[in-house]
């Protein structure tokens, strides 16, 4: 390492040292050829029914034109009674929801209560507004707490909306069409699950960025039912051959065993406190 003339230790948090270099590189690459972060190119949907909230998502993660992950989990755990679907940049949604989940766990350990959905929404809103939309996470937050069942949407710039049903992501137009057509207040559980499934399915069929399986998460006062996958895609590929090699495929030519001579010099026993 060269002479480190550091007179002040670098601050914690985001480091902007490479921002100027990245901007210069983008200019050199003639636009469109710089490595892009993994986006989920998603269809996510949620709706409030009689006893709680149903969230649904597809499972495809794309990196430009290639499907990077066929079984991506887009419904993230926030707390035992709150789950969150994320669209946008995959790393951003994952990290943001993990930080939110940690903060709410600390809160519930401090106070002994399950967190409310409004708390999660406020923390997210503050966090995303602070970074002025540079964190590309569009989230659908749904949960059931002591005040009832709630569904919120949070946009990357910190915009928040409380809605009875919602779809987000690149396939949201098709999904929203199905939801608008079929939504009624106080649906039953099976009807709600079928409506969410149909809307995600419409998103998958009409959008290149969504696909593969459908995950459904049902949150009620009694608990959470995370069904993954709820419906598998009909277009699964069948592997024709196995790529695993049998033991004995490579012939062993010679074998030499050298035992290491170790002698016990000192032995101490320290009891672990298993209180």
């Amino acid at each position, binding site marked *: 390492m060269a002479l*480190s003339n550091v007179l002040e230790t670098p*601050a914690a948090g985001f480091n902007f040292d490479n921002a100027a270099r990245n901007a210069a590189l983008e200019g050199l690459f003639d636009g469109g050829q710089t490595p892009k972060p993994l986006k989920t190119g998603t269809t996510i949907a949620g709706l409030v029914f009689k006893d709680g909230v149903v969230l649904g998502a597809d499972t495809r993660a794309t990196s430009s034109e290639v499907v990077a992950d066929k079984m991506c989990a887009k419904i993230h755990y926030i707390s035992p009674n709150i789950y969150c679907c994320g669209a946008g940049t995959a790393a951003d949604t994952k990290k943001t929801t993990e930080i939110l989940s940690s903060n709410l766990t*600390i809160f519930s350990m401090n106070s002994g209560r399950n967190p409310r959905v409004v708390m999660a929404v406020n923390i997210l809103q503050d966090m995303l507004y602070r970074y002025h939309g540079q964190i590309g996470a569009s989230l659908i937050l749904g949960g059931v707490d002591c005040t009832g069942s709630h569904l919120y949407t949070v946009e990357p710039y910190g915009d928040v909306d409380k809605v009875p049903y919602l779809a987000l992501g690149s396939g949201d137009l098709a999904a929203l069409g199905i939801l608008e057509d079929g939504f009624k207040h106080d649906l039953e559980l099976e009807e709600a699950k079928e409506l969410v499934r149909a809307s995600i399915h419409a998103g998958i069929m009409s959008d290149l960025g969504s696909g593969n399986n459908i995950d459904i998460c049902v949150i009620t006062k009694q608990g959470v039912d995370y069904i993954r996958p709820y419906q598998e895609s009909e277009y699964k590929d069948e592997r024709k051959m196995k790529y695993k090699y049998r033991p004995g495929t490579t012939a062993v030519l010679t074998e030499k065993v050298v035992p290491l001579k170790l002698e016990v010099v000192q032995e101490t026993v320290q009891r672990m406190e298993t209180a």
Partner: protein
Amino acid sequence: MNSRGLRSQLQDSVPVSGLCPQGAYGVQDSLRSGFTSVKNELLPSHPLELSEKNFQLNQDKMNFSTLRNIQGLHAPLKLQMEFRAARQVQRLPFLRSSNLALDTLRGSDESIGFEDILNDPSQSEVMGEPHMMVEYKLGLL
């Protein structure tokens, strides 16, 4: 990047380091920071750079002024005195101080943000030269 927009952020909080370019041995690091230009050194390279640098300061200012409006002058005055006292509990400049009292006062010991995960100073790969850092802090440099 709209440099005109960034120019509006050009207050007196950006350090002007035209005489001492960053990089090893005091020579401009062309590979990482590009060629020397006054604009590069004065304007922030990222829209969030300035707002992140001053974030804690601005949060504190906002909280203190709200507190003053709600509870009167004594509340923020007393808190600021406690902050000042807590800020004085530090190790030597090149060692990492835990700032435990300061964190407790601010309430940031009960929340996790990006500054706890990314670029953790206790796990930094570079260490400042102890003598130079102490001299800089004492103003002898």
